[in-house]
């Protein structure tokens, strides 16, 4: 849980972002503490992607401040963000299915040994690290040289996260890590997210799925049409309230009512009728 005494690893203070005349974000504040999962919720187009891209260094905020460990920071590129320990795992995972797990794990950051023209990729040591890192998160590899395409979706997501952690991430930004997964696979990922929190990492968790979000999040920040609807501790907000915020609140109620009229009206009185949650 976020302790009030600790400093936020990353903090955005009153940031705004406009693309030409389109205002994607206005006056949003967001922070992550070590050892917490901060869940970012909002409908499509609410500004979640813009916010995480500012965190990841892909975009620069048009206004407002970016702070790391309480100090103002200049983050101009994804490389800067990575160097500061802010790693983003995008939905496409940045993995090549036909390449081996080891090759994917070290893609762009290959371990080398030797010197000059004899500098080579230290495959044996890299394999060892991959097997060890994945064993820690409970993926039992028979052969680190097997193609990533042979892993299940949840395992792939975990490998992508393990890679970010191994290369020194202090903050993990997970962009809808469970959206494409089945129940069992999603559970694997959620357990791993909880483990990462245990190890003191700050996790920014973007999700459409209330059950997944509520299962691991310590705090929620709700975005709606580019502005923040506030940040809440999990204890201060109920599952239904979160759902309301995610689904667009009144919009969803109106639609419910309309559906009720068409279908005979039984659902109108039952707010739990949509509790199964819109899946992405």
């Amino acid at each position, binding site marked *: 849980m976020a302790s009030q005494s600790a400093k936020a690893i990353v903090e955005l203070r009153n940031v705004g972002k406009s693309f030409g005349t389109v205002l994607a974000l206005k006056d949003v504040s967001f922070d992550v503490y070590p050892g917490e999962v901060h869940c970012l919720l909002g409908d499509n187009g609410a500004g979640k992607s813009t916010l995480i891209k500012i965190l990841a260094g892909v975009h620069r905020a048009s206004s407002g401040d970016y702070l790391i460990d309480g100090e103002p920071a200049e983050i101009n590129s*994804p*490389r800067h963000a*990575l160097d500061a320990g802010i790693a983003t795992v*995008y939905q*496409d*995972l*940045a*993995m*090549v*299915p*036909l*390449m081996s797990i080891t*090759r994917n794990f*070290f*893609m*762009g*950051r*290959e371990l*080398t040994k030797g010197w000059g023209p004899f*500098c*080579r*990729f230290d*495959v*044996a040591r890299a*394999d*060892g690290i991959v*097997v*060890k890192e*994945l*064993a*820690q*998160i*409970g*993926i*039992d*590899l*028979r*052969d*680190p*040289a*097997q*193609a990533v*395409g*042979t*892993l*299940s979706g949840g*395992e792939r997501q*975990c490998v992508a996260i393990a890679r970010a952690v191994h290369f020194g991430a202090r903050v993990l930004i997970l962009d809808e890590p469970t959206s494409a997964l089945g129940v069992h696979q999603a559970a*694997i990922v959620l*357990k*791993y997210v909880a483990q990462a929190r245990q190890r003191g990492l700050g996790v920014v968790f973007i999700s459409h799925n209330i059950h997944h979000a509520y299962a691991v999040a310590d705090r929620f920040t709700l975005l709606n049409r580019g502005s923040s609807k506030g940040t809440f501790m999990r204890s201060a907000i109920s599952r239904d309230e979160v759902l309301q915020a995610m689904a667009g609140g009144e919009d969803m109620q109106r639609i419910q009512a309309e559906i009720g009229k068409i279908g005979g009206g039984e659902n109108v009185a039952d707010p739990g009728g949509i509790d199964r949650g819109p899946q992405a």
Partner: protein
Amino acid sequence: MTELVSEKAVTPKGMGSDTARLRKPSAIARLLHRPELGALSGVILVYVVFYALAADSGMFSLSGLVNIFQVSAEIGILAVAAALLMIAGEFDLSMGSMIGFAGVTIGLCATTFNLSLPLSIAIAFSLCLAIGAANGWLTVKTGLPSFIVTLASLLVLRGLAIAVTRLLNGYTQISNITASDPDGFVVSLFSGRVGHPLFVWMAEHGWIDKKLDGTPGVDGLPASIVWWIALTGLATWVLLRTRFGNWIFAVGGDDKAARNMGVPVNRVKVILFMLTALSAAVFAAIQVFEVGSADTLRGTQKEFDAIIAVVIGGTLLTGGYGSAVGAFLGALIYGTVQIGIFYTGIDTDWFKVFLGLMVLAAVLFNNFVRRRATLAR
């Protein structure tokens, strides 16, 4: 390596893969997942078939085999570079024209401009590298398919070679290129015979055929074969054991993912285009010094021969998967069938028919192998 994690204690139950742990896959199981498997079986098949059809024809004599390897080597030198580029997801159709261009550049420099052979070679190689870099730069900057970009350079280079040569020389052929220094270092570098004493020694002991005067029937291994083997070895090492090799696979597998992970995608591609151009220049130098002349039409359609060898060798046309050894074996199959068909007595008109069917069979087989490779083991 896997023994490190055999303690179940560190593995929280119910997480990760649910499958039971198995032993490390056997060597055979690993071979079955290699991209070269199709080409290796192809080589064995081709040699079994030709042995059955033409065992006594001289095809399997030393000179017959050296002849086959020499033809394979020329395609193989191109195929190795083409394989690296194709694994990175791009094509170079200008390789054939580049051969003609490099050949006449060497020829014009050495004859019309009276430059020394080493300098002529250096100029031709530098020009080819620059053109290769231009191919790569245009491809990565415009985002056009390399198929189109290099199709343009295929035409431009061939046209340039013919036009400039005729303009300067009056003819489209250049002869007596090595006249200034017929036994010089560069000539033997590209067209020499390696291991002559060994072949003499073997002939003296009656292990290989002799000519009537007692000299060996084959007076050494042609340099092209040495180039072929050395370049294949180097490319294999780069692909499997270097940082750059990992980048090649990453760029061809998913260039967006590679870029996100900090791989310099454009640089990798430009370097590989330069390598295909360089391999065409090596091919041209070998041909020029083997026969002592250059012709603007040399290398016509060699780009397809190279691509055929690469595809037979198990490299995925869309990139991200393949091997240099596969390209080596693909070139060997190509050379063996092309030359071997003479010995069988079958009308050589059928060569292209065999080749076409073989490409189709190879691609189907390789698809099957690759599907297995990406299934759980």
